[in-house]
């Protein structure tokens, strides 16, 4: 197992994300249709397609942070809705946390995930339990920190984060939404998974897979 992740990992992460968002576009639209306005999958797909376009055009430069910053700026200007600024902020804070590091070790991976989570919470003011993407990112950040403290590899830190995010996303199902569009539904929001939490788990799983692939 590689002890550090690099720019190639960051690029694989984002390509994996674009692929899985495209593959899950319809499912994410369906989830949002149930308790929102049926656009989450469409918006993210549009955003990550634009990101890949800019990566293919050679706009990302040498460091992992430069990749994440490009993602942040592109999502901010192409996704719209709630998820655009939230993911935009998440990737921006993650990029800032990485600074100009060319290699990302386990501790820095945990920091990255935590910074993304903090960005989402700062921007959206949601708490754990409000049935939002925070319910995926908070357990993910906690799991990442614990794994890194326990000496896991970067890939394993990300795998722990992805697992926790997936459990968190599943856990949104019974909750009553208190933030975002689903909150208008009150108790009728219970019984559906939060689309943003589900897409968050997909993004973190893509990161873990990218780390896994790099070390294979």
């Amino acid at each position: 197992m590689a002890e550090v992740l690099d720019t190639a990992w960051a690029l694989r992460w984002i390509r994996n994300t674009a692929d899985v968002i495209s593959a899950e576009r319809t499912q994410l639209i369906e989830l949002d249709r149930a308790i929102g306005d049926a656009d989450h999958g469409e918006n993210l797909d549009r955003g990550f397609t634009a990101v890949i376009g800019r990566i293919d055009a050679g706009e990302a430069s040498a460091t992992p942070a430069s990749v994440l910053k490009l993602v942040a700026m592109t999502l901010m200007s192409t996704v719209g809705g709630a998820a655009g600024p939230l993911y935009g902020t998440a990737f921006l804070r993650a990029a800032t946390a990485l600074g100009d590091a060319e290699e990302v070790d386990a501790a820095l991976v945990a920091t990255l995930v935590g910074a993304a989570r903090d960005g989402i919470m700062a921007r959206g003011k949601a708490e754990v339990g409000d049935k939002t993407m925070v319910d995926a990112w908070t357990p993910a950040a906690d799991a990442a920190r614990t794994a890194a403290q326990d000496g896991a590899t970067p890939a394993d830190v990300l795998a722990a984060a992805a697992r926790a995010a997936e459990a968190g996303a599943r856990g949104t199902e019974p909750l009553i939404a208190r933030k975002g569009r689903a909150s208008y539904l009150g108790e009728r929001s219970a019984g559906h998974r939060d689309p943003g939490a589900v897409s968050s788990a997909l993004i973190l799983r893509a990161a873990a897979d990218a780390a896994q692939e790099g070390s294979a």
Partner: protein
Amino acid sequence: MKKLINDPRAVVEESVEGFGIAHADLVTVHPDPLFVVRRDAPVQGKVGLVSGGGSGHEPLHAGFVGRGMLDAAVPGAVFTSPTPDAIIPATTAVDGGAGVLHIVKNYTGDVLNFETAAEMAAADGVDVRSVLVNDDVAVEDSLYTAGRRGVGGTVLVERIAGAAAERGDDLDSVAAVAQRVIDGVRSMGVALTACTVPHAGVPSFELTEDEIEIGVGIHGEPGRHRIAMEDADGITQRLLDPITSDLQLVSGDRTIVMVNGMGGTPAGELYIVFRRVAQLLEGLGVRIERSLVGNYITALEMQGASLTVLRADDEMLELWDTPVHTAALRWGV
């Protein structure tokens, strides 16, 4: 899904392009990033008014760009708030030196994107202020929700604040009158059918032939209650009651009333609703000083209607009556 569209992903661009051709005397369309400005923007010395939001609510917002109303509209994808990279140039394009007011409907997406844009435009030296429209009484306004949605009241805010800006009020005053309208306006909607977002291809929710959705939003979000179909008079009562009680309307109050179609309901039915509103308000001793009946803020082809009531004071009525010249609202010019 049957719609008069081409590529579902080009719906907004093509529609706004057509709008720009049809109303070239009123507006200029900037294609990328997409926004619409008043043809004579920026008007020197006048506060600029910018609104925007997801598309699919036409004529809101582009249909209200022009003299006495908005200076710019920023249309997002269907039902998706626009992004800062479009809001920022729209903001700077209409800054005539007296600052810019953002009129934002209270949805998380709109709030976050306009917030970001406002920060960045301010960093560019524009004096930006924001007001948040949250008139939908179907939604509980509490610490534990995202707050009430912005719906029909937006049209009234845009008109009255637009009139104040046109007569030369400064940014503080325009923001203040906009806020007074927001404080005094409430709305409630009903859906008879759902709408279909082009990229989704299936209706946003399902209603049987006997059900209606009371308290529906303008995005095909399910409402608060699903009830059995009722007649127009019964439905009208269900729309009006929460508004009058929330506003605590009393005999002698003066109002501006809008009966708005959701896009798929014919005008003839809206007048049946308006007739009942007029009867009920008359019963309460509440006066309808001005009214709008028609499609002003829609949810694609949804069948249904919404009712908006503003408790109006003298200044609001005076501003209301000043000339307005936009694609969808026009008088006095």
